[in-house]
């Protein structure tokens, strides 16, 4: 299997506090990655294998970081469409990784802080932002004067 590689196209990135906020311009969704997820994302450049990413986490976070933590993190990034070569690992492999890591957390409570977090939100259209409708509207359903596929263009501007 090839080394994991994070997506680089159509993404805006902004470090915010300890997190990394990413806007996916292709899907119009935003993610916030905690430190663990951000470190894996930033270092998954195709040159490092899983062991290499483990080394990064051990150096930057905690020496107890291991392959299971990296595999869990890569799985979360993959689900968020943030990896290029998103060949999925088998569900059983992932379940086993998760089980082993959860068991380890039971033994070393501090590892909880290292768990990867990838939280996602949909960037709304103007209509969705107002109504809160998750399904309500792409630009085609907007009033013409407010159709902002390019907000510099004012369809009803004189």
């Amino acid at each position, binding site marked *: 299997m090839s080394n994991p590689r994070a997506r680089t196209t159509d993404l805006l990135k902004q470090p915010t506090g300890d997190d990394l*906020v990413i806007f996916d311009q292709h899907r119009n969704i*935003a993610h*916030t990655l905690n430190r663990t997820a951000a470190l894996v994302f930033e270092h998954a450049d195709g040159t490092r294998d899983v062991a290499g990413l483990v080394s990064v986490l051990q150096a930057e976070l905690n020496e107890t970081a291991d392959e299971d933590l990296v595999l869990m993190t890569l799985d979360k990034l993959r689900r968020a469409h943030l990896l290029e070569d998103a060949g999925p690992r088998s569900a059983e492999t992932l379940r086993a990784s998760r089980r082993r890591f959860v068991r380890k957390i039971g033994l070393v409570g501090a590892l909880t802080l290292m768990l990867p977090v990838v939280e996602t*939100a949909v960037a*709304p259209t103007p209509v969705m*932002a107002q109504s*809160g409708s998750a399904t309500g509207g792409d630009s085609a359903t907007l009033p013409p004067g407010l159709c902002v*596929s390019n907000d510099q263009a004012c369809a009803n501007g004189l």
Partner: protein
Amino acid sequence: MALQQPTPPIVMWSPRETDASRASWSFFRASNLATFPTEQTLLFTCYGARIGIFTNDTRRPSVLEALRPMLPPGWQPLPSAQGVCYYLVDVQEPEAGEVTYTVWMGSECLVEEVDQEVALDELASALHVTVSCHAPDDWLFVHAGVVAWNDRALVIPGVSHSGKTTLVKALVEAGATYYSDEFAVFDRQGRVHPYARPLGVRDSQGQVTKESVQALGGHAGTEPLPVALIVSAQYQPGAVWQPTSLSAGQGALRLLENTVLARTRSALALQVFERVMHTATALAGTRGEAASLALHLRALFARRVDERT
């Protein structure tokens, strides 16, 4: 840019299209808005958005006079109609004593042959959206309630009907300075500016009445402020406020998912919210009654001020 007749390339008739709406549209289409009588024209700007309202109403006072108190807060008159987003208000009197109103936003019919109150409510509501969408990119509009204490803002992001006005009202009644019940308007430095329209208070039947902040015994802020706290609160009857702290990135996400132009100003939004989170902390949870949470938040703000000093 020269003012032209309102003939967009594609005329999009609304589903309510009727002979009356066609006649209404034809009237304005045959007119040159550049030379429309000034007393039948209302041109203004708000946060840089340029808006023009034109009417065939020649009565005194006209429908435009009735609309003035409902215009977006802080509006300023414009000297010319150049580059405005336009609205048309067609006033007809089909029978003696019966006056009907049809409102157009560009080529889109907003409401047709309704009474003045309904027409103005629809128009005023649409104007707020237009401002938020057409303000230049010095500004970022987020659906949120905003109040302030001690020169620090509290931002409550949320869509319509999420209870933010109820909470804002309770906060004002608890002594907070009112900034908005609709938009947090952010500048590029991450400070929040006032959008202090009258509060749209909804009763148990869903009817909205407008209440000025003065009528609530409060006052509106005028200065831009840094944000101290972001509160994401879901209403649930009887719930006790036991919030969880959000990380900076999670706080930014709560703002982004309520940002009007989140898709087209995403780069600006990410930069602005990063700056917001320099000074802000964010909480999320389920709230019960607004008055109880308002007192809790007031105490929280007081503690934060003590910590700063």
